[in-house]
């Protein structure tokens, strides 16, 4: 890439602290997914006059944990500000957030995240974190029909006041794939800290600033899942490049990611930064975070992904690659460690999870109801889109015992890998334990010569041409082996069959 053509990308990420049970400034239940509209509301989150917001300590604790995980400097005095804007998603006409114009008011500032080199050669890049702050989520607007045809907005304030952490990075990304690495790593950190479940619909949202060096900056909003961020940025870079290539100047503007059409579209201009008229929130005292408080929070932090990878390498002798894949998705790493309690063979267990289970999930998905985004254009019936935190898919059915049993069956020579893969398919679709599946199937490995003689002879008889070819070309043996495996429904011990076939071919060769 030519230097003049350098792309610069910065992110603004919002993570809901979904592990919290109450809202940020009032005790209303925070779990709004699947609820009737406007049931989790009170005079505080509806902004009634005379109410007093009270800060949730756990929200501060979680935000501090995340700020520490991202190597931020932690404020000793945490202060909130009012950001004024007029829109029905906020009943108060301002959002309680944080603002760093005069001093560090935000929970964290000046942090960084190291991105691992995808080829495994240490750290490939450092992304600086400008700030990390706590703020309240606005309510949810839905429209009868579509946003264009409806004459009014329907407002549900269940989400209003739910705790968000906003993370703002410096524009240190130069390519969309770096953004994906960053977000994957962030998701893994969130899961390991157990403060936000990124799989929940709308729990993580991301805006991106994209510019080509020397040209204006464009902000992309409305990207409702981490998966779409890379696509939206890739589209936007292509759009800006095609403009500059034709000598057309890029406009500094806000664009929305149109999920359905897979493009970015120009958005209505909203307030400028100065129009927000930030001022200190007079109803919420600054929070003084002492060094002892900070030590207590630090000590209570769960193991972070980076440390877990190193431990897997050290304690279980896994390759760093395997360890990274496991830790990249916390449930895989958890499944791995729990399975070891049933069968203490780390490499074998890791192999089943990383190669087979993950391979299956990557190809077919988890099978749970996919999450839909319902933020802007959905009808009023759409609130059922907000799934509750119940995994209905494969992962809900698969326990550590499943993985351990499968590995033991193969390692003990009871079944071969071909059969094991069939069993895994059945196990994933039914949730039955491998030992139970085996009882209903005729799958024990055929590993005695006398069990196989008849079938090997039959194949030799049926495949005369291949047999003749095999005399001069040993590679043909694999074809014959395949035939034997087919007749035995994959149950034959392939090593034994191969040696039996070889014996016969050698006999034939010497008799020629």
């Amino acid at each position, binding site marked *: 890439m030519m230097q003049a053509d350098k792309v610069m990308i910065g992110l603004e990420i919002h993570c809901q602290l979904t592990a*919290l*049970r*109450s809202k940020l400034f009032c*005790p*209303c*239940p*925070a779990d709004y997914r699947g609820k*009737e*509209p*406007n*049931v*989790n*509301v*009170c*005079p505080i989150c*509806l902004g009634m006059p005379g109410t007093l917001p*009270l*800060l*949730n*300590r*756990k*929200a*501060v604790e979680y935000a501090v944990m995340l700020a520490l995980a991202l190597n931020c400097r932690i404020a000793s*005095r945490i202060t909130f500000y009012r950001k*004024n*804007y*007029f*829109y*029905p998603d906020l009943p108060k*006409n301002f959002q309680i957030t944080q603002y760093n114009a005069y001093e560090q008011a935000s929970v964290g500032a000046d942090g960084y995240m190291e991105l691992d080199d995808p080829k495994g050669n240490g750290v490939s890049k450092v992304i600086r974190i400008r700030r990390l702050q706590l703020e309240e989520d606005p309510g949810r*607007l*839905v*429209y*009868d029909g579509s*946003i264009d045809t*409806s*004459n*009014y*907005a*329907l*407002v*549900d*304030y269940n989400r209003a006041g739910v705790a968000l952490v906003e993370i703002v990075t410096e524009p240190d990304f130069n390519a969309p794939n770096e953004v994906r690495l960053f977000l994957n790593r962030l998701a893994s950190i969130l899961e390991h800290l157990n403060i936000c479940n990124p799989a929940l619909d709308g729990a993580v949202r991301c805006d991106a600033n994209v510019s080509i060096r020397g040209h204006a900056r464009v902000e992309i909003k409305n990207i409702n899942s981490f998966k779409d961020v890379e696509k939206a940025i890739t589209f936007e870079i292509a759009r800006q490049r095609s403009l500059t290539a034709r000598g057309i100047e890029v406009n500094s503007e806000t664009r929305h990611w149109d999920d359905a059409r897979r493009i970015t579209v120009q958005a*209505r201009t909203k*307030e400028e930064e100065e*129009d927000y008229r930030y001022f200190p929130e007079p109803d919420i*005292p*600054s*929070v*003084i*975070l*002492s060094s002892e*408080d900070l030590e207590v929070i630090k000590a209570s932090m769960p193991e972070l992904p980076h440390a877990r990878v190193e431990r897997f390498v050290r304690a279980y002798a896994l390759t760093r690659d395997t360890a990274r894949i496991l830790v990249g998705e916390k449930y895989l790493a958890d499944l791995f460690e729990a399975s070891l309690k049933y069968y203490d063979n780390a490499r074998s267990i890791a192999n089943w999870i990383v190669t087979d289970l993950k391979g299956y999930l990557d190809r077919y998905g988890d099978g749970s109801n996919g999450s839909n985004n319902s933020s802007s254009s959905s009808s*009023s019936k759409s609130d059922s889109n907000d799934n509750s935190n119940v995994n209905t898919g494969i992962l809900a059915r698969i326990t550590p015992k499943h993985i351990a049993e499968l590995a033991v069956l193969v390692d003990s020579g009871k079944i071969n890998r071909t059969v094991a893969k069939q069993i895994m398919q059945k196990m994933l679709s039914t949730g039955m334990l491998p030992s139970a599946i085996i009882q209903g199937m005729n799958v024990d490995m055929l590993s005695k010569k006398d069990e196989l003689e008849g079938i090997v002879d039959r194949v030799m008889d049926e495949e005369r041409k291949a047999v003749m070819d095999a005399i001069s070309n040993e590679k043909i043996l694999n074809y014959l082996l395949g035939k034997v495996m087919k007749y035995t429904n994959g149950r034959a011990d392939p090593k034994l069959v191969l040696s039996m076939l070889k014996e016969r071919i050698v006999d034939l060769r010497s008799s020629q």
Partner: protein
Amino acid sequence: MVSVEEVRHLAHLARIGMKDEELRLYAEQINEIIEYFNMLDELEIGNDVEPYRMSRGYKEMRDDIPVAFPADMLSNAKSMKGRFIKAPKMG
């Protein structure tokens, strides 16, 4: 000094329609209020006074215990559709 144009912009941000004579009236009143605050500049407070800022310790914050508000807040809403609150569409 706050100008009539600045008040017009503020009115726009708050989506309040105002006539020119109202804008002039409010600009005048806002300036009077700001001038009143100027009296604070004349106070003798010395040089080593820390500004007072209200603060609380981390441990004094509220526990994360959910409590549903006992009354249905919707009885106060003017316009409803089902359990949704109807609001003007922002153009």
